[in-house]
């Protein structure tokens, strides 16, 4: 394998042993004496390679094996098969040099202590990663410029909003200028403004530092804003590895048109496109329409029907992937 790649993954597999039993008292007693295990292949012979300073979106529905893969690549999990090299290290050996040159930021997990201001945690990180004062100050100033941290890092973390906390988590994960970033749902739960902010930050950070970024997200906007390349896994297997544009063209060359009609029962929307899920709350009915026909269909809809409201959106990422591999 060529040494130039930042991340090389070869036939990586992870099988979990899950103990299982039926409900009820007698089953509980039986399982006390004899446990039955079931193998769950969370990641199944996945191979890919990522070059330095690439930003790659790692996609798949819930339970596809994304987080498991990220955990293996950051060293938290031992694989049950295959190989991985990141920056020339085998991650799960947890070598100090490796841990000092990568970061794992998980949107749903806090690394910062709740009880103290982030600034104090940053100082601790400075010591842990042995950062010289000058470097530390320079990086912090840069992160402050990009994320506007000055005020928020003085408050105890428990008093921060979700968006503010995520900014601090990202900053804490980047103080040591890691060469590889594993980001698991970095924008989850954030409002649109904060999402955009984090996205812009990541883009700029990648441009400035040349760091390699592998990120998972449920927000298509994250992926389209940041990644030219996506890797898709589904039920532990690699399903797609290539350009984002090709993906949309190949897999989901359609958009969703949603309409709210004056008298919805009377009209058959299937004449205009494949009916998709309706949104009860906004009383919107959706149809799937090929991307190149959106204008045409929209015009027809507006002309034919008593349209009160109309919206055109990209299909949600989950359904793109579902569509690709199940449909």
């Amino acid at each position, binding site marked *: 394998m060529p040494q130039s790649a930042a991340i090389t993954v070869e036939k990586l597999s992870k099988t979990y042993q899950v103990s299982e039993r039926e409900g009820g008292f007698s089953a509980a007693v039986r399982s006390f004496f004899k446990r039955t295990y079931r193998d769950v292949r969370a990641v199944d012979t996945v191979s890919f390679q990522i070059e330095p300073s690439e930003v790659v979106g790692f996609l798949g529905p819930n339970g596809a094996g994304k987080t498991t893969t990220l*955990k293996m690549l950051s060293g*938290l999990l*031992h694989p049950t098969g295959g190989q991985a090299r990141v920056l020339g290290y085998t991650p799960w050996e947890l070598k100090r040099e490796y841990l000092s040159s990568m970061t794992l930021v998980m949107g749903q997990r806090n690394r910062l202590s709740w009880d*103290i201001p982030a600034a104090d945690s940053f100082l601790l990180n400075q010591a*842990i990663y042995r950062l010289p004062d000058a470097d530390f100050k320079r990086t912090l100033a840069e992160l402050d410029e990009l994320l506007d941290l000055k005020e928020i890092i003085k408050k105890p973390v428990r008093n921060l909003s979700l968006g503010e906390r995520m900014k601090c988590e990202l900053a804490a994960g980047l103080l040591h200028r890691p060469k590889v970033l594993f980001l698991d749902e970095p924008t989850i739960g954030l409002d649109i403004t904060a999402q955009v902010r984090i996205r812009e930050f990541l883009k700029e950070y990648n441009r400035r530092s040349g760091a390699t970024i592998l990120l998972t997200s449920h927000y298509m906007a994250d992926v389209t804003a940041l990644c030219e390349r996506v890797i898709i896994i589904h039920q532990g297997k690699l399903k797609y590895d290539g350009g984002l544009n090709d993906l949309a063209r190949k897999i989901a060359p359609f958009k969703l048109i949603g309409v709210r009609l004056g008298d919805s029962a009377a009209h058959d929307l299937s004449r205009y496109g494949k009916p998709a899920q309706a949104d009860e709350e906004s009383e919107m009915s959706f149809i799937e329409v090929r991307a190149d026909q959106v204008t045409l269909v929209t015009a027809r809809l507006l002309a034919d029907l008593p349209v009160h409201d109309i919206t055109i959106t990209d299909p949600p990422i989950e359904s793109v992937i579902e569509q690709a591999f199940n449909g």
Partner: protein
Amino acid sequence: MLKIYQRLWQVTWAEQWQYRANTLMYLLYWLVSPVVYLSVWTTIARSQGSVSGLTANDFVIYYMTLLIIDQLTSDITIYNFASKVQDGTLSNDLIRPIHPMLTTTLVNNMAFKVLTLLALLPVWGVLWFLFQPDFTGVTWQGILLVIPAVVLGFLINFLLNAALTCVAFWTTRIWALHEFFMALGTLFSGQFVPLTLMPPLIQSIARFLPFQLTKYFLIELILGRLSPSDIVQGYLMGVFWLVVSLLLFRWAWRNGVKKFSAVGA
């Protein structure tokens, strides 16, 4: 490395300070039994003149010294660490380039100690006022001699508890095991009564166990009740148990982390 501990101290102290009321409650709870033993034994000793040769004052200074020694060698690793293994937050610590237990947990112990010792001072003052103890057996040599022994006792206690906490990597419920370990400690460390009041069998077993190195040995040493050969024997025992607990901890940690990363959290 020193800087890591310094910064860790600042952070941990600030965290502990936030929970000072909680610490105080813990201290009050923990104070109950030694103070009760102290009162009971001194009352008995007063009414009988002495108990197995121990006078009322002997009991007073024993338990008053125990209060301090117990804090100095106490260990809260399991409270600090076991939950991290169980809920998976240990992941955050594992991907930092420092050993989580030998840094964060160790410093956490220290901060807790300092806080509880501060809170203990007024209690000690009140006991002094109530019982008017006679500490004439305590010498400067005794104090100097006991300092390394306290460090040794704490390290042994810390490493043994750390090893025990590592059991959490295999089984998620470790509190029963912890209780059992604590019970052994109460029996063999001199926490309950001075070991001389225990049956000879218990005394001779206790001599070879690590528990008395964290309490009884230190109390007797500081009170000037040990012969030079007792002191040498205690120290040798201390070094032996330090090595054993270090090996135990290393084994448990390595294999535990391997287990953790096999199962995932």
